[in-house]
């Protein structure tokens, strides 16, 4: 399961923005909304005749496979880094 999301943005003016997002606390804070989203997703699965548990299982596996993902984009003097650990 992902632990930390890191976002780093380097602006052309030289300003550097770093954001560290601890995933678990954020998930806990957003849990009421996540439960609501899960309910909506379950209804959507039923409407489109997709097996609900299989869909949630695949979503969970995707979420758990995220650690190690890293995107680093440099364009001129602008740079963006997104890293999931």
């Amino acid at each position, binding site marked *: 399961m992902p632990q930390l999301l890191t976002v780093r943005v380097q602006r052309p003016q030289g300003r550097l923005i770093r954001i560290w997002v601890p995933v678990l606390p954020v998930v806990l804070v957003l849990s009421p909304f996540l439960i609501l989203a899960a309910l909506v997703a379950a209804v959507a699965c039923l409407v489109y005749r*997709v097996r609900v548990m299989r869909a949630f299982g695949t979503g969970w596996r*995707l979420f*758990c496979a995220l650690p*190690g*993902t890293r*995107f680093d984009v440099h*364009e*001129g003097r602008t740079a963006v880094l997104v890293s999931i650990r």
Partner: protein
Amino acid sequence: MNEQRKDILDMLAEGKITPDEAERLIAALERDQPPMAASSEVRPKGKAKYLYLMVDSIDNGEPGRVNARVPLQLLRAGVQLAALIPPQALAQANAELSRSGVPFDLTQLKPEQLEALVEHLDEVTLEVDHPDAKIRVFCE
């Protein structure tokens, strides 16, 4: 574990040789074996963990670079999404593909085939050299 080493350990387990003799035999075996090459070409199959995409480009005279690293585990989980696509969506996609001149039947594409594709990705290295861009896709 190679066969010779296994034979030595079997002999040790059966009491035919002493631990000291087994150690000497294994040491001799390691001496006789050629050293592993350091190149990435001899990387054991199936050991790759990440898919790397590296792009170096020059746009309007400014250098650009994209480095992306995606865990193969994420790709394996992602291909399972294919099993969740509703049949009506597949039918619509097939119709659009045919209309665009690509007669490809997506319903024939099974998740097992996609998984096999991901399993063999670690043997793939793609390099594109262009005057304005250099692209490299590989697994490590």
